[in-house]
């Protein structure tokens, strides 16, 4: 089984700002190990002649011309915001700062 430690899961959870209980960490560490195991089977099948793929369809150079199109209004932009102030999104104190 691919080793993923409890500490690594805790670290990922912290980066994603997801709070996890000890039980959840234990559970996820073994579950994620299993997922990694399954994915690594693909590596065994994919030989030298199969290039790594990032997109489902091999397309490239899809671009748009540099033309301005109308934006949302301030009201529309903020319509889904949990809190607002002075036409801006209001967010809680930024954690982990000095």
């Amino acid at each position, binding site marked *: 089984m691919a080793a993923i430690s409890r500490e690594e899961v805790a670290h990922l959870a912290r980066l994603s700002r997801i709070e996890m209980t000890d039980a959840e960490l234990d559970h996820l560490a073994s579950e994620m190990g299993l997922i990694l195991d399954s994915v690594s089977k693909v590596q065994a099948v994919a030989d030298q002649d199969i290039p790594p793929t990032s997109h489902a369809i091999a397309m490239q150079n899809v671009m748009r011309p540099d033309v*301005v199109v109308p934006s949302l209004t301030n009201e529309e932009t903020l319509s889904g915001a949990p809190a607002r102030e002075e036409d801006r999104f209001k967010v809680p104190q930024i954690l982990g700062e000095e």
Partner: protein
Amino acid sequence: MALNYDQALEKYEPTLGLEVHVELNTNSKMFCGCATEFGASPNTQTCPVCLGLPGSLPVVNAKAIESSIRIGLALNCSITPFSRFARKNYFYPDMPKNFQTSQYDEPICVNGYLDVTIDTDEGPKVYRVDIERVHMEEDTGKSLHVGGATGRIHGAEHSLLDYNRAGIPLVEIVTRIIPGTDKYAPEVARAYVAELRDILRSLGVSDVKMEQGSLRCDANLSISPRNSGTLGTRSETKNVNSLRSVERAVRGEIIRQANRLESGERIIQETRHFQEESGETRSGRSKETAEDYRYFPEPDLLPIVADPAWVEELRVALPVKPSIRRKKLQEAWGVPDKEMAAMINAELLDTVEETVALGAEPTKARSWWLGEVSRLANEKSVEPTSLIQPSEIAEIIALIAAGELTDKLARQVVEGVINGEGNPSMVIEKRGLKVVSDDSSLMVAIEAAIASQPETAEKVRSGNIPAAGALIGAVMKATGGQADAAKVRELLLKHLGQA
């Protein structure tokens, strides 16, 4: 006992690298059609794409790709045949998507260089700055921290976000370690950013305004004991928003790190913020390491495969390099190195060029801009070009050449224009600053001067020409400086039988 700069350099060698972010001046954002105009009211240049709303799909701006390739070409880079975007994941409200679309291991341009020249004790020296990569990404939103000390994160109760800037195309230009700068590290850093800015300006891809943040420089610096063959831990200084600050920030960091090591402390790898007032840096947020960004290929954007024929087309159409343009101007103007360097350092080369194009003699244009106008600008702490137009300086120089203004009167005209009294001819009219050139009124003043200093006049009559200075001075004083001194001298000597 704290080490000063020279003492720090005696014991330690600096290692310098620079990252420059430049905001492109496209009309629309990097991945959506929102406008990029500066100064719009908050959250009015936003759409589902740049707000990161579920289901929205980004499409890359063709002009931004073109500008990025042109920047790479101007910096002697190779354009990579296959380039991809990547997600840089981080949890911070300045990016509503919780990631920044950037490039990771497949940037659009790699392996370039830029040569910069600085003055050293041994004369001008060229440093080659190797460019590791030029990659595309997007700018972040602007946060306003409320509560606690105004504008500071520390102690803030909450933050307010404006996403107008989120998604504006950014190009990041990363150097390799610049070897051998030694004590000139601050000067090399400044010269590199200045040269880069000139190139970007000549390409027309950005406003390159450091004060407004469309060009930003991060300085990576470490020091190590001389001849130790090791590399120290580096700090990354941000918030450097002028050329002068680039130089000061590097100098300040060398001193700070040397003093830390001297007192037995270690250097922490961290982000620091440059403080404009003190010239020092202050610790910022400790950075997540590269691993923590969990980069992966952006599935919603397709790879860029630049057609070699297109790249060649762009290469052929590049403008003349600023360094070559400067050389040509210097030759055309016949200006010595030192004066040329003074114009470049004062960032007045374009202005002088414009003034010369309007008919002014190069030496005169240079001396007005670098002399009187710069002096007044300094007093007011503003840019010389914000005070007066090249066309106005050209007009004043033309009036002097035509004998209608003396240098002294011309300075008054400049002062008037700067005080908002109108264009030069209006100032001359209002202030009555015409040169007194009609001979009869000058002769009245000359005769008065002779009458008040008969002995001096006698000396001149008997051939002592230098004695005439006192009489000329008296005439100039009597006419309030509005006479042409050469004209006065000519008339006076003639009157006293010496011409």
